[in-house]
């Protein structure tokens, strides 16, 4: 029986194209995975892999997540009790932090201790949002296996004004240079998160999604 990958639907934008990106990554990596977009906590709790997307404002996303009764508990069940691979994307990654500081202070999930605050580039002429394609400064992680990083590496698509500042440096797997280092990817045990959008990042993105679908932490 093929593994089930649950993409959590909590009213945060279009997930159809994200699902298509996962389906294509699975096809190209020749792994058999059933991709489901779901707002049902029971399906999330029982899934083999879980994806938490997120676009928009932090507090809005948190409200959306809390509006689905049992969803946060279901995520805890999958990621912690059952140790299933879990991937947060963009605001979904930021929600892994302790707190979001966008507009108001909003509690996050607290899985990756740290705060999500405004990007403050050393060079004041740099535009905010950090929007577009940038390379990664990365350590090694199974999700980045086979992906060239560094100045000559592949590019990831970013669009954000806030970034996660992790309390534990070991939780930061990749950074991006935007007037100084900005967190691009975090990971701890079975949980990972990308600030960039792998589902919009062409080659790098499809490779990372394929790695996630095969990840056995």
């Amino acid at each position, binding site marked *: 029986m093929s593994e089930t990958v649950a993409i959590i639907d909590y009213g945060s934008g*279009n997930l*159809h*194209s994200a699902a298509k990106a996962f389906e294509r990554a699975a096809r190209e990596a020749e792994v058999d995975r059933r991709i489901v977009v779901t707002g049902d906590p029971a399906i999330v709790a029982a899934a083999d892999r879980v994806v938490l997307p997120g676009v928009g404002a932090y507090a809005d996303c948190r409200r959306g997540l809390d509006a689905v009764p049992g969803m946060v508990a279901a995520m805890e069940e999958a990621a912690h009790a059952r140790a299933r691979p879990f991937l947060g994307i963009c*605001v979904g990654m930021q929600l892994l932090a302790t707190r979001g500081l966008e507009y108001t202070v909003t509690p996050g999930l607290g899985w990756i201790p740290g705060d999500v605050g405004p990007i403050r580039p050393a060079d004041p002429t740099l535009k905010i*949002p950090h*929007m577009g*394609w940038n*390379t990664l400064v990365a350590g090694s992680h199974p999700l980045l296996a086979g992906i060239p990083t560094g100045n000559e590496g592949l590019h990831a698509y970013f*669009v954000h*004004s806030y970034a996660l500042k992790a309390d534990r440096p070991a939780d930061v797997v990749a950074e991006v240079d935007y007037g100084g280092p900005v967190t691009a990817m975090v990971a701890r045990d079975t949980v990972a998160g990308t600030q960039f959008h792998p589902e919009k990042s062409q080659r790098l993105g499809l490779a990372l999604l394929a790695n996630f679908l095969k990840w056995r932490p």
Partner: protein
Amino acid sequence: MLKTRIIPCLDVKDGRVVKGVQFLELRDAGDPVEAAKAYDAAGADELCFLDITASHEARGTLLDVVSRTAEACFMPLTVGGGVRAVEDVRALLLAGADKVAINTAAVKDPDLVARAAEKFGAQCIVVAIDAKRVSGPGEPARWEVFTHGGRNPTGLDAIAFARTVAAKGAGELLVTSMDRDGTRSGYDLALTRAIADAVAVPVIASGGVGGLDDLVAGVAEGGASAVLAASIFHFGQHSVAEAKAHMAAAGLAMRLDA
């Protein structure tokens, strides 16, 4: 390092590309999805659909085009044209657009930008500003915002309007010179520069590209974060790869791995 983006723009009417895309042997050059796939493969950094359908009733066709494109292309897609309300923004985002451009409605009601940004995040709200130079020779340069494809003057100063919508929550500005659009004589660099210097958000230069040096100038002199072009790509005059190579050779940071 963040790279300069190249954004091909397709005019779409009743679900079909107007000014057909001729640069590749497409099975159906009038199908926006086919054109989008070709640009995806060609290494475009983003794609822009501008819906010029006159009637509001035909929106369903556009939503279908957007959703089929989003399923086939794993790159960012901006959609504009005829966006009048928060509900229009929502419908486009749900169909699979990553960003939505608001033009006339932002002039009529700048608070629409604030409402949309609060709801969906500033990162997906683009305000498209169509501007015409209204200062006489010898006067300090001034530009006025126009709507309806450059037909209707608004009395609004383009720089002041750019500041207003950026403050309301626009995450990006698409600045088109109506004087240059379609002339192939290059961007209005003074306009691009004046707006890029006035706001903290990224600016996309648009209107008037005739050759690859114009793309370079849009960034180097205009201060744009991204350059939008239509006909030089659609008609096969240049490929996206040629444009990137040219811009990189001029010293601009480009994404060449696509």
